[in-house]
Protein backbone atom coordinates (compact mmCIF):
# COMPACT_ATOMS: atom_id res chain seq x y z
CA UNK A 1 0.00 0.00 0.00
CA UNK A 2 1.40 3.41 -0.87
CA UNK A 3 0.76 6.47 1.28
CA UNK A 4 0.69 10.13 0.27
CA UNK A 5 4.13 11.56 -0.38
CA UNK A 6 3.32 15.27 -0.25
CA UNK A 7 3.18 17.83 2.52
CA UNK A 8 1.58 21.27 2.73
CA UNK A 9 3.80 23.89 4.28
CA UNK A 10 1.32 25.00 6.94
CA UNK A 11 2.58 25.68 10.46
CA UNK A 12 -0.07 24.54 12.96
CA UNK A 13 0.26 26.30 16.29
CA UNK A 14 -1.70 25.01 19.27
CA UNK A 15 -2.65 26.94 22.34
CA UNK A 16 -1.47 25.80 25.77
CA UNK A 17 -4.02 23.96 27.98
CA UNK A 18 -6.28 26.04 30.15
CA UNK A 19 -5.50 26.31 33.85
CA UNK A 20 -9.01 25.11 34.69
CA UNK A 21 -8.44 21.78 32.97
CA UNK A 22 -5.02 21.27 34.53
CA UNK A 23 -6.51 21.99 37.96
CA UNK A 24 -9.23 19.44 37.34
CA UNK A 25 -6.79 16.75 36.28
CA UNK A 26 -4.53 17.49 39.25
CA UNK A 27 -7.49 17.05 41.61
CA UNK A 28 -8.47 13.74 40.04
CA UNK A 29 -4.89 12.48 40.26
CA UNK A 30 -4.45 13.63 43.85
CA UNK A 31 -7.06 11.10 45.02
CA UNK A 32 -4.80 8.38 43.73
CA UNK A 33 -1.71 10.09 45.02
CA UNK A 34 -2.63 9.27 48.62
CA UNK A 35 -2.62 5.64 47.62
CA UNK A 36 0.53 6.11 45.59
CA UNK A 37 2.46 7.04 48.72
CA UNK A 38 2.56 3.33 49.37
CA UNK A 39 4.96 3.06 46.44
CA UNK A 40 7.68 4.60 48.54
CA UNK A 41 6.87 3.00 51.89
Amino acid at each position, binding site marked *: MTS*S*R*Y*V*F*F*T*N*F*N*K*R*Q*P*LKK*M*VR*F*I*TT*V*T*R*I*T*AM*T*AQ*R*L*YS
Partner: protein
Amino acid sequence: MNIVKYPFLFLFLLPGIFAWGQRISGVENYAINRPGVVMIRTEYSANVYVNSMKMDNKQFNALLDSIQRLDQAGGVAAEQKLDIVLREMNNNPSRFFQTTFDYIKQSEQITAIGTGFFLTGDGYVATNCHLIERDNAFIRRQFILTAFQQITDASIAALESSWATTFTEQQRSLLYNTYASVYSRLFSMILYGLKKNVYVVYRSDREDKGPGTEKKPASVVGKGQPMPGKDVAILKIDTDHEMPVLTLADSSLPRVGEQLFVYGYPGPVTNNDFLAAESAIEPTLTTGIVSAVKNSVGGWPLIQMDANINHGSSGGPVCNEKGEVVGLTTFGSLENTGGLAAGLNFAVPVAILDEYLDSAGVKPQLSKSSRLYAQGVEFFDQGHYRAALGKFQEVKKLNSTYPRLYIYIEDCKSRIKRGMDHYSGPIERVLIIVVLLLGVAALLAWRGVRLNRRRP
Protein backbone atom coordinates in the same frame (compact mmCIF):
# COMPACT_ATOMS: atom_id res chain seq x y z
CA MET B 1 30.79 69.97 -5.78
CA ASN B 2 33.15 68.36 -8.25
CA ILE B 3 31.71 68.94 -11.73
CA VAL B 4 34.36 66.77 -13.40
CA LYS B 5 33.02 63.62 -11.78
CA TYR B 6 29.47 63.95 -13.16
CA PRO B 7 30.16 62.43 -16.58
CA PHE B 8 31.71 59.48 -14.72
CA LEU B 9 28.70 59.36 -12.45
CA PHE B 10 26.54 59.21 -15.55
CA LEU B 11 28.63 56.30 -16.80
CA PHE B 12 28.01 54.54 -13.49
CA LEU B 13 24.28 55.10 -13.87
CA LEU B 14 24.20 53.75 -17.43
CA PRO B 15 24.33 50.06 -16.44
CA GLY B 16 21.54 50.77 -13.99
CA ILE B 17 19.40 52.30 -16.73
CA PHE B 18 20.01 49.38 -19.08
CA ALA B 19 19.48 46.92 -16.25
CA TRP B 20 16.04 48.38 -15.46
CA GLY B 21 13.70 45.39 -15.32
CA GLN B 22 16.71 43.08 -15.46
CA ARG B 23 18.58 41.20 -12.72
CA ILE B 24 18.83 42.71 -9.26
CA SER B 25 20.93 41.49 -6.35
CA GLY B 26 19.54 39.41 -3.49
CA VAL B 27 19.96 42.41 -1.20
CA GLU B 28 17.85 44.58 -3.53
CA ASN B 29 15.34 41.78 -4.01
CA TYR B 30 14.82 41.62 -0.25
CA ALA B 31 14.84 45.40 0.26
CA ILE B 32 12.15 45.93 -2.36
CA ASN B 33 9.96 42.87 -1.74
CA ARG B 34 10.17 42.37 2.01
CA PRO B 35 7.65 45.15 2.89
CA GLY B 36 4.86 43.49 0.88
CA VAL B 37 5.28 40.00 2.40
CA VAL B 38 2.64 39.17 5.02
CA MET B 39 1.82 36.39 7.46
CA ILE B 40 -1.53 34.62 7.03
CA ARG B 41 -3.21 33.28 10.16
CA THR B 42 -6.30 31.12 9.96
CA GLU B 43 -7.56 30.77 13.52
CA TYR B 44 -9.87 27.85 14.24
CA SER B 45 -11.63 27.74 17.60
CA ALA B 46 -13.89 25.07 19.09
CA ASN B 47 -14.95 23.50 22.36
CA VAL B 48 -13.68 19.99 22.94
CA TYR B 49 -15.61 17.97 25.49
CA VAL B 50 -13.54 15.14 26.92
CA ASN B 51 -15.01 12.37 29.04
CA SER B 52 -13.20 12.78 32.36
CA MET B 53 -11.52 9.80 33.94
CA LYS B 54 -10.79 8.66 37.41
CA MET B 55 -8.27 6.18 38.66
CA ASP B 56 -9.79 3.21 40.46
CA ASN B 57 -8.20 3.38 43.91
CA LYS B 58 -9.43 -0.08 44.80
CA GLN B 59 -7.64 -1.68 41.85
CA PHE B 60 -4.62 0.50 42.44
CA ASN B 61 -4.42 -0.63 46.09
CA ALA B 62 -4.80 -4.24 44.98
CA LEU B 63 -1.83 -3.81 42.64
CA LEU B 64 0.21 -2.23 45.43
CA ASP B 65 -0.73 -5.11 47.72
CA SER B 66 0.67 -7.56 45.15
CA ILE B 67 3.85 -5.54 44.85
CA GLN B 68 4.14 -5.42 48.65
CA ARG B 69 3.85 -9.21 48.83
CA LEU B 70 6.63 -9.52 46.24
CA ASP B 71 8.66 -7.01 48.22
CA GLN B 72 8.24 -8.99 51.44
CA ALA B 73 9.49 -12.04 49.57
CA GLY B 74 12.57 -9.94 48.84
CA GLY B 75 12.08 -9.86 45.08
CA VAL B 76 11.44 -6.16 44.32
CA ALA B 77 13.88 -3.28 44.59
CA ALA B 78 12.40 0.09 45.63
CA GLU B 79 13.15 1.72 42.26
CA GLN B 80 11.39 -1.13 40.40
CA LYS B 81 8.02 -0.52 42.06
CA LEU B 82 7.10 2.47 39.92
CA ASP B 83 8.05 0.62 36.72
CA ILE B 84 5.84 -2.31 37.69
CA VAL B 85 2.88 0.03 38.38
CA LEU B 86 3.28 1.88 35.09
CA ARG B 87 3.67 -1.36 33.11
CA GLU B 88 0.55 -2.84 34.69
CA MET B 89 -1.41 0.34 33.94
CA ASN B 90 -0.26 0.10 30.31
CA ASN B 91 -1.06 -3.61 30.00
CA ASN B 92 -4.56 -3.27 31.35
CA PRO B 93 -5.77 0.34 31.32
CA SER B 94 -9.45 -0.52 31.69
CA ARG B 95 -8.65 -2.05 35.10
CA PHE B 96 -7.27 1.21 36.51
CA PHE B 97 -9.17 3.96 34.67
CA GLN B 98 -12.89 4.53 35.15
CA THR B 99 -15.28 6.55 33.02
CA THR B 100 -17.23 9.21 34.86
CA PHE B 101 -20.31 11.10 33.74
CA ASP B 102 -18.37 14.37 33.86
CA TYR B 103 -16.96 16.07 30.83
CA ILE B 104 -13.97 18.38 30.81
CA LYS B 105 -14.74 21.31 28.51
CA GLN B 106 -11.62 22.56 26.79
CA SER B 107 -11.76 25.71 24.62
CA GLU B 108 -9.25 25.04 21.92
CA GLN B 109 -7.63 27.27 19.36
CA ILE B 110 -5.53 26.02 16.49
CA THR B 111 -3.84 28.45 14.16
CA ALA B 112 -2.71 27.58 10.67
CA ILE B 113 0.15 29.93 9.82
CA GLY B 114 1.40 30.59 6.32
CA THR B 115 2.61 33.38 4.07
CA GLY B 116 1.11 35.74 1.50
CA PHE B 117 1.84 39.04 -0.24
CA PHE B 118 0.05 42.24 -1.23
CA LEU B 119 -1.13 42.46 -4.83
CA THR B 120 -2.53 45.99 -4.68
CA GLY B 121 -2.11 49.09 -2.55
CA ASP B 122 -5.73 48.88 -1.35
CA GLY B 123 -5.21 45.56 0.43
CA TYR B 124 -5.68 42.55 -1.89
CA VAL B 125 -3.46 39.66 -0.83
CA ALA B 126 -2.46 36.41 -2.59
CA THR B 127 -1.89 33.14 -0.74
CA ASN B 128 -2.62 29.40 -0.92
CA CYS B 129 -6.16 28.06 -0.65
CA HIS B 130 -5.11 25.24 1.69
CA LEU B 131 -4.16 27.84 4.31
CA ILE B 132 -7.67 29.17 4.60
CA GLU B 133 -9.65 26.08 3.69
CA ARG B 134 -8.78 22.58 4.85
CA ASP B 135 -11.36 19.81 4.95
CA ASN B 136 -13.31 19.65 8.21
CA ALA B 137 -12.20 16.09 8.98
CA PHE B 138 -8.56 17.21 8.96
CA ILE B 139 -9.28 20.17 11.27
CA ARG B 140 -11.37 18.03 13.64
CA ARG B 141 -8.53 15.50 13.82
CA GLN B 142 -6.12 18.33 14.66
CA PHE B 143 -8.40 19.44 17.52
CA ILE B 144 -8.79 15.93 18.92
CA LEU B 145 -5.05 15.23 18.69
CA THR B 146 -4.26 18.57 20.33
CA ALA B 147 -6.77 17.95 23.12
CA PHE B 148 -5.35 14.46 23.63
CA GLN B 149 -1.80 15.77 23.78
CA GLN B 150 -2.67 18.57 26.18
CA ILE B 151 -4.68 16.34 28.50
CA THR B 152 -1.98 13.66 28.45
CA ASP B 153 0.77 16.22 29.17
CA ALA B 154 -1.30 17.69 32.00
CA SER B 155 -2.11 14.23 33.40
CA ILE B 156 1.54 13.14 33.35
CA ALA B 157 2.63 16.42 34.97
CA ALA B 158 -0.07 16.00 37.63
CA LEU B 159 1.05 12.42 38.30
CA GLU B 160 4.65 13.54 38.67
CA SER B 161 3.65 16.32 41.01
CA SER B 162 1.38 14.30 43.29
CA TRP B 163 3.52 11.15 43.23
CA ALA B 164 6.55 13.34 44.04
CA THR B 165 8.64 11.85 41.27
CA THR B 166 10.12 12.67 37.88
CA PHE B 167 9.44 10.08 35.23
CA THR B 168 12.23 8.88 32.98
CA GLU B 169 11.78 9.20 29.21
CA GLN B 170 10.93 5.49 29.08
CA GLN B 171 8.28 5.83 31.81
CA ARG B 172 6.85 8.93 30.13
CA SER B 173 6.62 7.13 26.80
CA LEU B 174 4.86 4.20 28.49
CA LEU B 175 2.35 6.61 30.04
CA TYR B 176 1.71 8.23 26.64
CA ASN B 177 0.84 4.81 25.24
CA THR B 178 -1.41 4.13 28.23
CA TYR B 179 -3.32 7.39 27.82
CA ALA B 180 -3.55 6.87 24.03
CA SER B 181 -5.14 3.53 24.70
CA VAL B 182 -7.43 4.98 27.38
CA TYR B 183 -8.69 7.83 25.21
CA SER B 184 -9.08 5.80 22.05
CA ARG B 185 -10.87 2.86 23.67
CA LEU B 186 -12.55 4.00 26.86
CA PHE B 187 -13.38 7.68 26.66
CA SER B 188 -15.04 9.95 24.16
CA MET B 189 -14.12 13.36 22.85
CA ILE B 190 -16.75 15.60 21.25
CA LEU B 191 -16.01 18.65 19.15
CA TYR B 192 -18.55 21.47 19.24
CA GLY B 193 -18.89 24.96 17.73
CA LEU B 194 -16.04 24.98 15.22
CA LYS B 195 -15.34 28.55 14.04
CA LYS B 196 -12.82 30.00 11.58
CA ASN B 197 -11.34 33.48 11.12
CA VAL B 198 -8.69 34.52 8.61
CA TYR B 199 -6.23 37.31 9.40
CA VAL B 200 -3.45 39.08 7.56
CA VAL B 201 -0.57 40.09 9.81
CA TYR B 202 2.07 42.51 8.56
CA ARG B 203 4.86 44.70 9.81
CA SER B 204 3.72 48.22 10.50
CA ASP B 205 6.40 50.64 11.72
CA ARG B 206 5.95 53.90 13.54
CA GLU B 207 8.62 56.57 13.73
CA ASP B 208 8.00 57.15 17.43
CA LYS B 209 7.51 53.51 18.46
CA GLY B 210 9.71 51.57 16.04
CA PRO B 211 8.76 48.25 14.46
CA GLY B 212 5.29 46.90 15.15
CA THR B 213 2.75 44.50 13.70
CA GLU B 214 -0.80 44.93 12.50
CA LYS B 215 -3.36 42.13 12.42
CA LYS B 216 -6.39 42.67 10.17
CA PRO B 217 -9.37 40.36 9.55
CA ALA B 218 -9.50 39.29 5.93
CA SER B 219 -12.35 38.32 3.64
CA VAL B 220 -11.94 35.75 0.89
CA VAL B 221 -12.73 37.27 -2.51
CA GLY B 222 -11.56 34.40 -4.71
CA LYS B 223 -10.21 30.91 -4.30
CA GLY B 224 -9.46 27.67 -6.06
CA GLN B 225 -9.14 24.34 -4.23
CA PRO B 226 -6.34 22.92 -2.07
CA MET B 227 -3.96 20.66 -4.06
CA PRO B 228 -4.56 18.70 -6.22
CA GLY B 229 -6.84 21.66 -7.12
CA LYS B 230 -5.57 25.08 -8.13
CA ASP B 231 -4.28 26.01 -4.70
CA VAL B 232 -4.58 29.81 -4.69
CA ALA B 233 -6.72 32.28 -2.75
CA ILE B 234 -7.23 36.03 -2.90
CA LEU B 235 -7.94 37.87 0.34
CA LYS B 236 -8.91 41.47 1.04
CA ILE B 237 -8.27 43.58 4.10
CA ASP B 238 -9.50 47.10 4.83
CA THR B 239 -6.66 49.55 5.15
CA ASP B 240 -6.22 53.29 5.64
CA HIS B 241 -2.74 53.28 4.11
CA GLU B 242 -1.43 52.43 0.67
CA MET B 243 0.14 49.02 1.18
CA PRO B 244 3.51 47.81 -0.15
CA VAL B 245 3.03 45.62 -3.20
CA LEU B 246 5.02 42.92 -5.01
CA THR B 247 5.16 42.89 -8.82
CA LEU B 248 3.84 39.82 -10.64
CA ALA B 249 5.90 38.40 -13.51
CA ASP B 250 4.18 37.76 -16.83
CA SER B 251 2.38 34.44 -17.20
CA SER B 252 5.27 32.62 -18.91
CA LEU B 253 6.90 29.90 -16.81
CA PRO B 254 10.42 30.42 -15.44
CA ARG B 255 13.15 28.38 -17.11
CA VAL B 256 14.86 25.41 -15.45
CA GLY B 257 18.06 26.62 -13.84
CA GLU B 258 16.78 30.15 -13.18
CA GLN B 259 17.57 31.51 -9.74
CA LEU B 260 14.69 31.95 -7.28
CA PHE B 261 14.19 33.98 -4.11
CA VAL B 262 11.60 32.52 -1.75
CA TYR B 263 9.98 34.44 1.11
CA GLY B 264 8.16 32.76 3.99
CA TYR B 265 7.58 32.23 7.69
CA PRO B 266 9.06 28.77 8.33
CA GLY B 267 7.78 27.29 11.59
CA PRO B 268 11.18 26.21 12.97
CA VAL B 269 12.13 29.92 12.89
CA THR B 270 8.73 31.35 13.93
CA ASN B 271 8.53 28.95 16.91
CA ASN B 272 12.20 29.22 17.92
CA ASP B 273 12.31 29.99 21.65
CA PHE B 274 15.62 31.84 21.40
CA LEU B 275 14.13 34.50 19.12
CA ALA B 276 12.28 37.59 20.38
CA ALA B 277 8.52 37.58 19.75
CA GLU B 278 8.68 40.74 17.61
CA SER B 279 11.08 38.96 15.21
CA ALA B 280 8.31 36.56 14.24
CA ILE B 281 7.00 39.02 11.64
CA GLU B 282 10.35 39.17 9.81
CA PRO B 283 10.09 36.79 6.84
CA THR B 284 12.91 34.43 5.97
CA LEU B 285 14.48 34.62 2.52
CA THR B 286 15.88 31.43 1.04
CA THR B 287 17.22 30.89 -2.45
CA GLY B 288 17.30 28.11 -4.96
CA ILE B 289 16.85 27.36 -8.61
CA VAL B 290 14.02 26.08 -10.78
CA SER B 291 14.73 22.33 -10.65
CA ALA B 292 12.02 21.29 -13.11
CA VAL B 293 8.71 22.34 -14.57
CA LYS B 294 6.21 19.53 -14.03
CA ASN B 295 2.52 19.04 -14.67
CA SER B 296 0.04 18.50 -11.85
CA VAL B 297 -2.44 15.61 -11.96
CA GLY B 298 -4.93 18.27 -13.08
CA GLY B 299 -2.77 18.98 -16.15
CA TRP B 300 -1.61 22.48 -15.22
CA PRO B 301 2.06 23.31 -14.60
CA LEU B 302 3.99 23.39 -11.32
CA ILE B 303 7.42 24.84 -10.61
CA GLN B 304 9.77 22.45 -8.81
CA MET B 305 12.49 24.21 -6.83
CA ASP B 306 15.29 23.32 -4.42
CA ALA B 307 14.99 26.33 -2.05
CA ASN B 308 14.88 25.40 1.62
CA ILE B 309 11.24 25.61 2.72
CA ASN B 310 9.35 24.51 5.80
CA HIS B 311 5.93 24.52 7.47
CA GLY B 312 4.69 28.13 7.47
CA SER B 313 6.09 29.04 4.04
CA SER B 314 2.92 28.06 2.16
CA GLY B 315 1.51 30.88 0.04
CA GLY B 316 4.77 32.82 0.10
CA PRO B 317 6.05 34.63 -3.01
CA VAL B 318 8.65 32.91 -5.17
CA CYS B 319 10.52 35.67 -7.00
CA ASN B 320 12.86 35.64 -9.99
CA GLU B 321 16.11 37.55 -10.38
CA LYS B 322 14.19 40.66 -11.49
CA GLY B 323 12.33 40.64 -8.17
CA GLU B 324 9.01 39.66 -9.79
CA VAL B 325 6.72 36.99 -8.36
CA VAL B 326 6.74 33.85 -10.55
CA GLY B 327 4.83 31.56 -8.16
CA LEU B 328 3.50 30.72 -4.71
CA THR B 329 5.20 28.18 -2.43
CA THR B 330 2.64 25.39 -2.00
CA PHE B 331 3.78 21.87 -1.12
CA GLY B 332 6.78 19.62 -0.64
CA SER B 333 7.73 15.97 -0.88
CA LEU B 334 8.04 13.35 1.84
CA GLU B 335 10.64 10.63 2.24
CA ASN B 336 9.51 7.00 2.62
CA THR B 337 10.12 7.40 6.34
CA GLY B 338 7.61 10.27 6.46
CA GLY B 339 10.22 13.00 6.98
CA LEU B 340 10.43 16.11 4.82
CA ALA B 341 12.46 15.55 1.64
CA ALA B 342 14.63 18.67 1.64
CA GLY B 343 14.92 20.70 -1.53
CA LEU B 344 12.15 18.95 -3.47
CA ASN B 345 9.43 21.56 -3.23
CA PHE B 346 6.75 22.97 -5.52
CA ALA B 347 5.21 26.33 -6.34
CA VAL B 348 1.98 27.15 -8.15
CA PRO B 349 2.92 29.43 -11.07
CA VAL B 350 1.63 32.98 -11.23
CA ALA B 351 -0.42 32.15 -14.37
CA ILE B 352 -2.77 30.10 -12.17
CA LEU B 353 -3.14 33.06 -9.80
CA ASP B 354 -3.92 35.28 -12.83
CA GLU B 355 -6.97 33.12 -13.62
CA TYR B 356 -8.50 33.84 -10.20
CA LEU B 357 -7.50 37.52 -10.26
CA ASP B 358 -9.38 37.90 -13.53
CA SER B 359 -12.49 36.16 -12.24
CA ALA B 360 -12.42 38.19 -8.99
CA GLY B 361 -11.93 41.42 -10.96
CA VAL B 362 -8.68 42.23 -9.14
CA LYS B 363 -6.02 44.06 -11.11
CA PRO B 364 -2.59 43.70 -9.50
CA GLN B 365 -0.81 47.00 -9.62
CA LEU B 366 2.37 48.37 -8.11
CA SER B 367 1.29 51.01 -5.60
CA LYS B 368 2.72 54.52 -5.84
CA SER B 369 4.32 54.09 -2.42
CA SER B 370 6.03 50.85 -3.54
CA ARG B 371 7.37 52.50 -6.69
CA LEU B 372 8.71 55.47 -4.72
CA TYR B 373 10.14 53.16 -2.05
CA ALA B 374 11.95 51.06 -4.70
CA GLN B 375 13.39 54.24 -6.24
CA GLY B 376 14.43 55.39 -2.76
CA VAL B 377 16.18 52.08 -2.08
CA GLU B 378 17.99 52.30 -5.43
CA PHE B 379 19.19 55.84 -4.70
CA PHE B 380 20.19 54.76 -1.20
CA ASP B 381 22.23 51.81 -2.53
CA GLN B 382 24.00 54.18 -4.97
CA GLY B 383 24.86 56.58 -2.13
CA HIS B 384 22.49 59.37 -3.26
CA TYR B 385 21.08 59.82 0.22
CA ARG B 386 19.49 63.23 -0.40
CA ALA B 387 17.59 61.92 -3.43
CA ALA B 388 16.67 58.77 -1.48
CA LEU B 389 15.40 60.86 1.44
CA GLY B 390 13.13 62.79 -0.94
CA LYS B 391 11.59 59.54 -2.19
CA PHE B 392 11.19 58.11 1.31
CA GLN B 393 9.51 61.34 2.51
CA GLU B 394 7.00 60.96 -0.32
CA VAL B 395 6.35 57.34 0.72
CA LYS B 396 5.77 58.57 4.27
CA LYS B 397 2.96 60.82 3.07
CA LEU B 398 1.23 57.80 1.49
CA ASN B 399 1.96 55.27 4.24
CA SER B 400 3.75 56.43 7.37
CA THR B 401 3.83 52.82 8.65
CA TYR B 402 5.70 51.42 5.62
CA PRO B 403 8.07 48.71 6.94
CA ARG B 404 11.66 49.87 7.50
CA LEU B 405 10.83 53.33 6.10
CA TYR B 406 11.73 55.23 9.26
CA ILE B 407 15.04 53.33 9.45
CA TYR B 408 15.93 54.39 5.90
CA ILE B 409 14.90 58.00 6.66
CA GLU B 410 17.10 58.08 9.77
CA ASP B 411 20.00 56.48 7.87
CA CYS B 412 19.69 59.01 5.04
CA LYS B 413 19.67 61.95 7.45
CA SER B 414 22.65 60.62 9.35
CA ARG B 415 24.68 59.94 6.19
CA ILE B 416 23.85 63.36 4.70
CA LYS B 417 24.97 64.95 7.97
CA ARG B 418 28.27 63.07 7.78
CA GLY B 419 28.82 64.33 4.21
CA MET B 420 28.47 60.88 2.66
CA ASP B 421 25.91 61.91 0.01
CA HIS B 422 26.97 61.57 -3.64
CA TYR B 423 24.78 64.48 -4.58
CA SER B 424 23.02 64.31 -7.91
CA GLY B 425 20.40 67.04 -7.95
CA PRO B 426 18.36 68.47 -10.88
CA ILE B 427 21.00 71.04 -11.87
CA GLU B 428 23.64 68.36 -12.10
CA ARG B 429 21.35 66.13 -14.13
CA VAL B 430 20.77 68.99 -16.61
CA LEU B 431 24.53 69.52 -16.80
CA ILE B 432 25.04 65.82 -17.54
CA ILE B 433 22.49 65.98 -20.37
CA VAL B 434 24.08 69.15 -21.76
CA VAL B 435 27.55 67.54 -21.67
CA LEU B 436 26.14 64.44 -23.35
CA LEU B 437 24.35 66.46 -26.06
CA LEU B 438 27.50 68.52 -26.68
CA GLY B 439 29.45 65.28 -27.02
CA VAL B 440 26.94 63.89 -29.53
CA ALA B 441 26.92 67.20 -31.44
CA ALA B 442 30.72 67.22 -31.54
CA LEU B 443 30.74 63.64 -32.81
CA LEU B 444 28.23 64.44 -35.56
CA ALA B 445 30.15 67.60 -36.52
CA TRP B 446 33.39 65.61 -36.72
CA ARG B 447 31.77 62.95 -38.91
CA GLY B 448 30.28 65.69 -41.11
CA VAL B 449 33.67 67.30 -41.61
CA ARG B 450 35.20 63.92 -42.52
CA LEU B 451 32.45 63.16 -45.04
CA ASN B 452 32.82 66.59 -46.65
CA ARG B 453 36.57 66.04 -47.01
CA ARG B 454 36.02 62.73 -48.83
CA ARG B 455 33.64 64.23 -51.37
CA PRO B 456 35.36 65.17 -54.59
